[in-house]
Structures are given as C-alpha cells and as structure tokens.
C-alpha cells in the first residue's frame, strides 16, 4: 500500500470526477459535492469526456475493457489540477489501481501522475480546504457506513466522520459491525446474489438497531445497496451520500 498522500495547498480550480453511479443514479449527491467545493471558493471543472473509473470491469476480471475506459479518463483530465472524487471506492481505483492496470504499458507514467492528483471528496474538504461546517438542521441521529475501499484502500473514513462530527446537532452512532462489508462488491451482488443478500440483510438489521433516522455513507455503490434494502424492508431510515447530507445540513 502506497504512503498516504501529501496534501497540496488550497488550489483555485479543481476537476470533478462524478463516477458513473453519481452520474446516473445520484446526480443530486454530485451537485451537492460540487456546490460545497464552490462554496469554498473553488472553480469546479466538469470534464465532459469523463465516464466510469473502470472498476466494475477490472474487478470482474475484464482488465482489457477496464483499461480502454481508464485510458479515456487519463485523457479527460489533462491539466495538473486535483481530481475530486465523491467515492472512496472509485478513488481507490484511480489512485491505487490505475498504476497496476497500466503496469508495463506506455501509459504507466501518465497513470502514476494521474493517481497522485486524485482525492476523495471528504478527504479533500477536510485536509486541503479545511472546511468549517455550520449545522443548520434539526437534531438527528445518524448511522455511518464505511465503504470497504474508503476504509482499507483510501483510508479516509476518519475524514468523512470528522466532517459529520462538525455538525453540532447531529449525533453520529457507530454500527456494531461498522467494518463489515455491506455485500455490494460491484458484480458480486449479481454473481453471488444470495450471499450478498445475506450481507446487506445483516447490515440493515445493524442499522435498525442503532435507532438512527439516517444512514450516511461516502460511496454510492453501498448507498444503492443498503438504501435499496432499507426501502425494500419498508424502513423509514433514509440513505444519503455524505455530500448531499452535508449540503442539506449546512445550506439555507
């Protein structure tokens, strides 16, 4: 595992890498993340040619297809600006796996440079922008879900939680098995549906046990999985992306 990143001084411009799930299923989370960056005075650039980080194919065992898509991303963010990603999982792909994906290929150096520019959104908000959040919402109990890659690859879970803890009216509760996977795992949910269902079922029970009214996470894969299971069980707990949650609490 590479050393933790060194954080740059606050820039004036950043790139935003939406990720495919934010793009198609949770655009409001992406907008919230962008607005919060803008609120800190940054100009946020949204490259049109961006699509997916390539992780789904990469993890499924299709590196050729993953590489084709990844190559596209390498070209879509040409300038030497930080690339902000509202996902620990996609962030991990871009930062840690791109160099492996292109090992021994001509793009390797570009992948290395690209990787060094990648920051997870909450990580960037905390360490580079050093944001101070002012909570304007009513009291609320919130359960936090750590995505596995945010936890073990990007290691930025403490950053996300630190942002939530800045919200004065929000009570952050821990899940009994906070570090256990929710069972999403990209194609895992489809290839091993029964195991995945058992995992997300346990996660939902764990969340239910906390009495939290909201489930917040920094990854839309987990959100789609857990949120979908919460809704399917008819529970009132709402799942939300961290950025959208913070935007909601601190805006207006």
């Amino acid at each position, binding site marked *: 595992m590479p050393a933790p990143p060194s954080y740059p001084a606050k820039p004036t411009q950043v790139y935003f890498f*939406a990720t495919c799930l934010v793009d198609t299923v949770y655009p409001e989370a992406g907008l919230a993340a962008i607005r919060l960056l803008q609120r800190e005075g940054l100009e*946020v650039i949204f490259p049109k040619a961006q699509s997916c980080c390539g992780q789904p194919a*990469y993890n499924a065992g299709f590196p050729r*297809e993953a590489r084709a898509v990844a190559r*596209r991303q390498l070209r879509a963010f040409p300038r030497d600006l930080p690339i902000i990603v509202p996902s620990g999982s996609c962030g991990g792909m871009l930062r840690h796996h791109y160099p492996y994906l292109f090992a021994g290929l001509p793009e390797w150096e570009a992948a290395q440079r690209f990787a060094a520019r990648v920051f997870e959104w909450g990580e960037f908000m905390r360490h580079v922008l050093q944001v101070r959040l002012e909570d304007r919402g009513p009291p609320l109990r919130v359960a936090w879900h750590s995505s*596995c890659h945010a936890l073990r690859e990007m290691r930025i879970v403490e950053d996300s939680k630190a942002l939530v803890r800045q919200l004065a009216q929000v009570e952050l509760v821990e899940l009994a098995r906070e570090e256990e996977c929710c069972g999403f795992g990209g194609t*895992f949910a489809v290839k091993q*549906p029964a195991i995945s269902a058992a995992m997300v079922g346990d996660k939902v029970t764990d969340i239910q046990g906390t009495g939290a009214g909201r489930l917040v996470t920094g990854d839309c894969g987990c959100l789609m999985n857990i949120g979908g299971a919460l809704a399917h069980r008819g529970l009132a707990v709402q799942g939300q992306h961290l950025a959208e949650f913070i935007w909601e609490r601190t805006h207006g």
Partner: protein
Amino acid sequence: MGERPAFDFRGNILRALADGQLRRNLQSAMDGLIRKRRAVFDDPAELEALRTVGQSLKQAALSRLPALLEELEANCTANGIQVHWAETAAEANRLVLAICQGERATRVVKGKSMVTEEIGLNHFLADHGVEVLETDLGEFIIQLAGEPPSHIIVPAVHKNRDQIARLFHARIPGAPYTEKVEELNAIARRTLRQKFFEGQVGVSGVNFAVARTGSLCLVENEGNGRMCTTVPPVHIALMGLEKVVARLEDLPPLLRLLTGSATGQIVTTYVNLISGPRRPGEKDGPRELHLILLDNGRSRILADPELRQTLQCIRCGTCLNHCPVYVRIGGHAYGFVYPGPIGEVLTPQLEGLARAGVLATASSLCQACGEVCPVRIPLPDLIRRMRTDGACQGPGGPEDGCRPPLWESLAWKIWALVNTHPGLNALGNALLGRFGRRLPRRGPLAAWSAVRTPPRFAPKSLHALAVKEGLPHE
C-alpha cells in the same frame, strides 16, 4: 485425488445460508478468534513491522526455493531423515502407503495436517486396508461425522456442543451423552490414548522446515502432534515444498505471526523441532522418520511472478476468520479442502479454473483478508487475478480451463464502448433516465430486486445537470 461428486457451489451456498445454526456457530467462533487476534497483536505498528518481516522471510525463501530444498534434503538426510519427493497427490499417497506396507502397518495415527487433506490421504489409505485415525480433537470429531474440515485451523468449528455430544454418544462405544466440554474432551482423551498406544505409524504435517539444520517445526496445543511423532515406531511427515525456510532464526517471527493470527495465542502449547529419528542410545522416538516433499502444482505456481505470492501462505486461517463470506457460508460450501479467501486463490490454481474458477466469485473484494494476512499476501488482488484468468484475460494469455461466459464478455464490450464514447454515454444516460425505472426485473436486476428496491435512475444525469448549472467543462 479420486472421484468426487460434481461441485455445486450455488447449491452449497444456498444450503449453508439456510442453516441458521451453522451461521450462529460460525459467527460466534469467528468473533472470538478475531477478538483474540486483536488482543495478542495489541500494538498496530509492531504488527505491521512483523507482517513485513514475515512477508520478506517467505519471499526470501521462495526466491531460493530449489537451493533451499536441496539444502534441506542434504541436512535432513545427514540427520537420518529419509527424504522423498512427490510430484502429485497420487505419488505422495503411494509413498505413504509403501512405507506403511513395508512396516506391515494397518493402524496409522495422524496429527492435523492440511496437506494430507489436500492429497486425500485418509481415503486412499483406507481403500488399501490401512486405518487412519485423526487425533486432533477437531479432526477426530469430523472424522466421526464423516465430514471434511470446515476451517483450516478449527476443523469442527461448524459444530456446536450438542451436535458433538450426540455424535460421541452415537459413534464411540460406551460414551455417555454429555454436553459438558470437559467431559467430551475426556472421552476423546480416553479413546485416543489407546490408539496412540497401538499406533504403528504416525503421520504429521510440517509448519516450517529449516534448511540449514534439517529440522521440522510443528506447532500444536493438544499434544497429539507430539504423540504422533514420538510414540509410533515410524513417523511420516508431509509438507508442501513451499514450507521451507532458510535458518532457525527465521522461526521466531514466523511463529509469532502464525500463532497470533491463527488462534490469538502468543505461543502454542507445543512447538516441536524435530531433527531426526531416535538417535543411538535414546529410549524413545520413532526408529524411522520420512519426509515427503510435495509439489502438486506448486512449482507451476512459483513460475508466475504474481501468483507466486500464494506460496507465502502459512495456513493461519485468519483470512477465513475475517471474511464476511466465509462466516456466512462456512468451509464446506467451498467444496474443496481450502476454503475462504486463500481457498478462492489456491484452489483454482491446484484444481484448475474449469473446476474451481467459480470460487473467485465468492468475494466482494472488501479487502478484509488482505488487511490481516500475516505474510501480506495481496489476497484481493489474487482473487481478481483468478477472475481475470477465468475470463481468459490473464497476463500470460488464455489459461487452461478459462471460459468467459458469452453474455458477460459481450456486456463488458458494450460497457466499454459506451464508456469510451461521450456521445454514446450521453445517449445511454438519457435512455436510463427515461426508461431505467421501468426495466424488466430479469437476470441481474431480478437478483438485485429480491431484497432491494431497484436503482432509481435519475431523469437527468450529472453530465446533463452540469451543463445546466453552467459548470466549466473541457
């Protein structure tokens, strides 16, 4: 390895998931093992340093494997150990049988050893009239039940005490029904003492073999390993050839890692260092000691720079304990000897992708295993590699037995096409926004929707919204 029934992973998984008792037994056992491991490795910085040492020691040994094995052979031979080489499981089995037959032995006592499970030794010997008795308590329990181990360290972990109580009562002549753990242990002790007394050949595995001194290191808690290697007149030790290390000084860190990871102990009750059979003048110990070095696919694994890391494994089992999939389906579901993350990586390499490649699907790549492996095997990367090899996209080109499912290959080709052409991507997003919520719940979406509401595709993608918001784009 003899015929086995066809491997039905799906069926196994569904059966295991439906077994609530199994789930409870596993969950409490794994929670306990995780807690104990954490308690013994209480200084994270020290643990990380130790893991790095463990990784380097095993990599150092693997990088000189042929030389070390020759050194081991020479020094073992000088110590009076008879060294044999086996290319395959079948060859190893025949070697053991030949030694037993040479002794006219029909009763073998065996210590816990995964490599003997790997080669199916018990069945083979039984088929040739040699009775093998498992003497590790956990192995003894599952042998009585006629089951394979479900965990590489705690083989009977799937059974609880009343299941064991019923088993003992039914299968051990004269055993009363009791659910008291102490009494169950006492029954096993009585039964097995007699067998040690009568055993003609003792069989064991090897945790580490020291090339420089020609020594075999075996760790255990029960004393059955010592019994098997001390009391019978002949001792046969089997090891996968990746178990060799260079020097005695390599043992202390590796032992720490092994016992701490496996059972959360700082040291096991017994650490045996065996460097030969009974010497002249000694009053006990086996008269003959045989060491069988087993390849069974390992030399092939060594040839691949990435897969080679599989051979660093010291069989501690902690990747199983930390695996959210293992804890839900248990070891038997994996269908082969090595379950859990290491099984997902090792089994396809030993048994071939065609038979066992499917095991690699049983991971969400959550990386819990890679985070704890004492010798830093990048298990998630290797699981991904198994998938890649299975899809015929391995670095060395298509592998034996790889067969990408047609629909999936096609799906990824289309996915790549869409995600490399902004126009197509925009069209795709628009279509999803428009019709995505009305997709028929078939195939993957059916599986998804069984326990979740389907994804709610947004009417406008972020791409579209960004334009609307007037964000600068390049």
